[in-house]
């Protein structure tokens, strides 16, 4: 009984046709072609399968004006995907066996999959923020560790105070980063509401403190 396994490997635009022909002669089945819209262009994923091994070849960052060689002379069934990617992503394929010339799908918007929706933009910003928060947290922790190391020489009392302060600062930073990550995972509207509530709470606490003084 063959076992299913999946594999992703990089591929260049020039090698697409060559690899497709090689796969065909090796007895692979053609599975599909798909496109992913990214900030650096379009990623194309070609999939082939033999004895349960699913081989995904990824062409990363195809520029918008690139011309991709069609593989329909090797695998005729790819005409559906190449026409689809042309209509939805605006990638130009050369030499498709059955070319619909942009009339494969009846669309009201041209190349709809290349439009970056506000939601997707928000998701990408969130991902960036999470990564930045993580990096900042790590940098702070490193700095604190270094400081603690450097201040070992002075008096013990001073050292303890610095360490406590550094620890408190670190804790606060960690909490903040965690909260930011949580917010980033939420729905944008909900996150905005939570942020507003938190600000209100902070204001109230500050007011109470002032009154107490």
């Amino acid at each position, binding site marked *: *009984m*063959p*076992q*299913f396994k*999946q594999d*992703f490997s990089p591929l260049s635009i020039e090698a697409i046709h060559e690899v497709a022909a090689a796969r065909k002669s090796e007895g692979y*089945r*053609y*599975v*599909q072609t*798909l496109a*992913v*819209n*990214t900030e650096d262009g379009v990623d194309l*994923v070609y*999939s082939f*399968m033999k004895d*349960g091994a*699913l081989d*995904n070849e*990824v062409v990363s960052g195809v520029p918008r004006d690139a011309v991709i060689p069609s593989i329909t002379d090797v*695998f*005729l*069934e790819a*005409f*559906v*995907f190449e026409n689809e990617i042309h*209509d939805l992503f605006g990638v130009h394929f050369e030499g498709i066996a*059955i070319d*619909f010339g942009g*009339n*494969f*799908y*009846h*669309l009201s918007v041209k190349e*709809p*999959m290349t439009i970056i*929706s506000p*939601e*997707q933009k928000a*998701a*990408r910003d*969130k*991902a960036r923020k*999470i*990564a930045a928060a993580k990096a900042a947290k790590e940098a702070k922790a490193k700095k604190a560790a270094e400081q603690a190391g450097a201040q070992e020489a002075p008096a013990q009392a001073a050292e303890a105070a610095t360490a406590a302060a550094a620890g408190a600062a670190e804790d606060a930073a960690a909490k903040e980063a965690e909260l930011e990550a949580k917010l*980033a*995972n939420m729905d944008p509207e909900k996150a905005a509401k939570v942020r507003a509530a938190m600000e209100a709470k902070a204001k109230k606490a500050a007011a109470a403190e002032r009154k107490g003084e």
Partner: protein
Amino acid sequence: MGKSTIIPFGPQHPVLPEPLHLDLVVEDETVIDCIPQIGFVHRGLEKLVETRDYNQFIYVAERICGICAMGHSLGYAETVESLMGVEVPRRAEYLRVIWHELSRIHSHLLWLGLAADAFGFESMFMHCWRLRERVLDIFEKTTGGRVILSVVRVGGVNRDIDDAMLREIVNVLDGIKDDYTKIMNTLLTDTSVKNRTVGVGFISKEAALDLSMVGPFSRASDVPYDVRSFGRGAYGELSDFQPVTDAQGDCFARVKVRCLEVLQSIEIIKELAAKVPAGDISVAVKGAPAEGAQASNVLEQPRGECYYYARGNGTKYLERMRMRTPTSQNLAGMATALKGCDLADVNMIVLTIDPCISCTER
């Protein structure tokens, strides 16, 4: 030889359950070429993945197609689980397969009814759909839905089936099997059915391999490819699984393969229902897929292998979700099968491929 004419076939045609357009190049009554076209029901469901988080999108995934609803939700969930490295409880895997095989029975019975209707066998259409109704009743009792089940979630299933219900399912299936065997024997021995299907729309094994055809369409041309034979999930627990194949390669072989697959699915459900292990039905899935992480997956839908691809971006929203359905893979094979056939046989050939256009366009 007369001069060639182009006859448009569809998208609105009595034999087509869904909008598919064919440009048939005919000489006299013989089709010499065929260009298939889809694109009338594209809904942009893949784009919706940007506005629904990975738990919500499962409800969109199963609405891609009514007949394959269970398969799409299962394929989507498996892909996201693979993306996030989630281990599903054993009991959930068994229940998923039981529902999935039930949906295969309902899909094949629906198709058999439509096919019978297409060759003018209307009472057979009624009988097939009567049996299908009993499968839908099982769905209603176990999930609350008849077509859209909403029972699979990322990390397991939403509902359990208790032992009494499992026994009832087996009893109902035994009843269906008796009735179904009678219908199947009639269908496969009837002269008028054979007159319409034997030798029509032939595809050789070489052509089937060459065109990477999938599902019952390829298995009727003696290609023993079935994703279930990889033994993933509960399929690995089956004592023996052999894909149903036929070497004849014509419309009759395709009818026969689907007919026998219904019996095979009944046996799979009966075997698994007796073995369902005790335990949880789902695990809590926390966090989000990592940025740039990607996963691919294949699943045997009633119409054949379906491919899924997902890419994460570090948030709960997936960067990309893609489903490649069996019909889009079979369109080239269909065009090949139509070459050289009689104009009157076009509907028979198109129907025995069991095209699902709304799946294909998403």
